[in-house]
């Protein structure tokens, strides 16, 4: 299960970017507020309460909705031909080329180290309420799961089903979804780390921390 950390780091270093494709959340008339190549900022402030750069305004039913950048980066592939036009929901508008920072690199690499519990089906997922509050309070890291624990609720065809965890026992290291998210089949839900692997994972994190410069 060892990973080649050097390779991974080298790969990320040579291309430390990820493109975020942005789509219209709903129909409306769009007016862009950014141009290709423009740098944008994501939400900021201690509580991320200050919105990022204004990307575009989408007006529907006389409600001009301002849409802000969800992350920092450089705006690319702006579909300027849509400017001033009526657009449908889910229309691709632009991408943000986001430079990964140290924490994000750690996240990316850890998905390859942790045991990943993926979505059994394309559905909406929720953590069971007790787990959600636990995680909120302790920011995971110390919550153990064992196979058979019912910790997730899968909402499918208007029905809620309890999902039992299956995989190696360990602590929940990372929750990859927000409660209520629509998750594709196989996409990661939880990242689990078994106790014996913990020192190794901490070592990996340390390595990345020392070797990665933002």
């Amino acid at each position: 299960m060892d990973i080649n950390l050097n390779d991974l780091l080298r790969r990320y270093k040579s291309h430390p970017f990820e493109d975020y494709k942005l789509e219209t959340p709903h129909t409306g008339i769009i007016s862009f507020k950014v141009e290709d190549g423009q740098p944008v900022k994501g939400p900021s402030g201690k509580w991320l309460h200050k919105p990022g750069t204004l990307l575009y305004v989408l007006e529907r039913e006389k409600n001009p909705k301002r849409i802000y950048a969800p992350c920092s980066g450089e705006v690319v592939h702006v579909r300027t031909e849509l400017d001033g036009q009526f657009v449908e929901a889910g229309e691709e508008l632009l991408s943000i080329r986001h430079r990964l920072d140290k924490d994000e690199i750690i996240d990316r690499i850890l998905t390859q180290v942790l045991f990943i519990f993926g979505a059994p089906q394309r559905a909406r997922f929720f953590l069971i309420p007790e787990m959600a509050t636990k995680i909120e309070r302790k920011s995971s890291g110390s919550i153990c799961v064992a196979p058979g624990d019912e910790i997730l609720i899968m909402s499918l065809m208007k029905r809620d089903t309890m999902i039992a965890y299956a995989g190696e026992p360990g602590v929940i290291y990372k929750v990859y979804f927000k409660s209520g998210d629509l998750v594709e089949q196989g996409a990661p839900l939880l990242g689990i780390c078994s106790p014996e692997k913990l020192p190794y994972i901490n070592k990996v994190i340390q390595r990345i921390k020392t070797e990665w410069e933002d």
Partner: protein
Amino acid sequence: MADSGKLLTQLADRISYLIDIKGDAKWANLDELLDRVHGLRQSLFDITEARLFEELDRIEERVSFLEDRVAEKLSPAEVVNIVRSIQRFTLQDVLENVYDSYTELGGEGECNIDPAMVVARAIISRRVKNKLYRHQVMVIGHEKGRGEEFRNGGCARPWGNDKALRYMRVAETEGIPIHFFIFTPGSFPIEDYPGAAQQIARNLYVMSKLKVPMVSFISEGGSGGAEAIGLSDIRLMGAMGYYSVISPEGAAAIEGRIREGEKLPKELIRHCAAQLKMTAKDNLELGTIDRIIEEPPLGARREDYGFFRRLRYEMIRATDEVVLKTKSFRAFRAYALKQRAEEGKDIPEDFDVAIAWDLSDLEIERLLELRSKKYRGLGKRGYIQLKKGLRLGLGRARDMATKGYYELRYGLLRPHQRNVQKVIEEVSGEGTVFLKKVTEPVRAAYDFVFPKLERPRKVSAPESMERRSIFAEDWEQYVSPLANEDRTVTCPNASKYGCLDLWVPDLYGELCGVCPSCGHHFPLEYQWYLENLFDQGSVREFNTHIVSGNPLNFQGLDARLKRDIKRTGRKSAIITFDAEVKGIKLVVAMLYSDFRSGTVGSAEGEKFVRACDRARTTRRPFLAYIHTTGGIRIQEGTLGVVQMPKCTVAVREYIDSGGLYMVVYDNNSYAGPVASFLGCSPYQVGIRSSRIGFAGPRVIRETTGQDVPPDYHSARNALKRGHIQGIWDRREFRKNLYDALVTMGGPNLYYK
């Protein structure tokens, strides 16, 4: 040589002090002068003594000259600088020089629940005909320290004010007077339990009826922080002190609409300092303080022992006055005349009489009465009273009639009884023995004239009568003007809860401004509540003839008042009215945002007090519905600030009379009102999505250097911290209010 070193230090201090006052080292080349002093110190051993002293004399002469020039004409902004100077005396100096001995309570120095608030048991003594008399007092005040961080510049934290309150109660138990020393730029604006605003409110509430004489001295009276220990029987103020509703910088930021982080223009600060009428002289004229204590021309510093002597004399004299006024007016007058003869002269070494500072029960009653009168009388000149027209006149006749009716019904015998009691007391020292005999028939008569009231039947009317709204179109009766637009709005929680955009006519119509998916409350205009909270047609406004004015002639306020009057069709930021909720009559005071952001000035305070009194005489519940309040109206200066104690006194008397005082916060409620007459209510409730607190995020950032989370002031957090007792949904406001009216409150409500 050692002497010259000391002289140099003194000179340097004097120059630095001047720099402090002018707020400008360049003024009259003070910096160069200071450099010269430092230069001399460097070359102390290189020059001859003669030359040194020659130079010292020259500098001293120059400094004296400059001191005179500065003292000749001190601007209000310079007075503020004096107060803030590190060289100004602090409570520590007062404790050491004014009192004979003292023991600090509730902490020492840094080891303290709040080093910014110091409490001490102290002894103050006076000489009468060569005999020494000692008085025990409780000293409570802010300690600014000498720049030590733990003193927090004299900004008491909520628990510091709580500590003050605890020892006020100790003083009350032990029956000793309290001397307050106010040295604070303001309260530390954090919401951590017990909460800045709520604790000040509690202090005010207790002080309004604390059964011991209280005298306060103000050096730096920063608004709410000052009031936390400021509701006293006599308020003294240092001649070079300031007492203000807000710091000149704060006022400048508001008046000049200066964005956070931008530099404030000095000129604007100076202008605001002058406009706020914050000096001792201004305050004396406004009636917000009782007396000024002379200070040296540039203000008292740590070594001004003469000033401390004077302060000791004045503290004793003021306490004497408070005590004597409770005894007999004649005795007080004799004392006062005697003392007045002394005025202008230096303070005497001896007192003519020794007066014991403990009070009998009767005297305590009188003390409280006088205190109530004093605070109720504050700010009377701060508002305009319109002549009533014919219709209003009729209303007044009705008011009078009502008053007469209720007085006859509930109030007649109480003062009468008191008079009887007094007579007895004066005749013999053992009033209590006789009292019973005399009052017994009176009580019998009372019971005869006023049989126990029966509960009105409407109160217990079945619920189902009220609820026939599903078919009936009663939501169509009042439609918010916000609803008349074909557009949608986005719920602020949309990204978190996935709320859909809301069609405005739905939202502001039957949805009552509430997002159906997350429950977020969009603000609704105050008229909505007038229409939806109370029984149809039951709202009857009173005291509309009391109008907000501009008592300080604050520049620009007249125009703004005019604009708001025109815009709202109302004449103050408060609406007081009689109303009914499912048949229960109540009195309501409503602060609303459209008029000067719901700020409280003299007119608002007066109307509030009158509403409160009306509720008391009619024995009705009293609701303060706070649609929004932005605090005390800063343009009224300390006339605004004193509305805090004034209204609290009225509230306290109402609650003590056995009523039900409910406060409901909506939208935004901040600062002074929350820290006094609202925050002291035993029943406080927040409407969902409202924000409640002492200072807004910006002020917190600027004073504490800490950023606060966006939901810092949310009703939910206020509930968590114990500031409010519950959160109400707007759609259930009426029902909950009715339930509260029926289930809560004192025994004296008319329907109980």
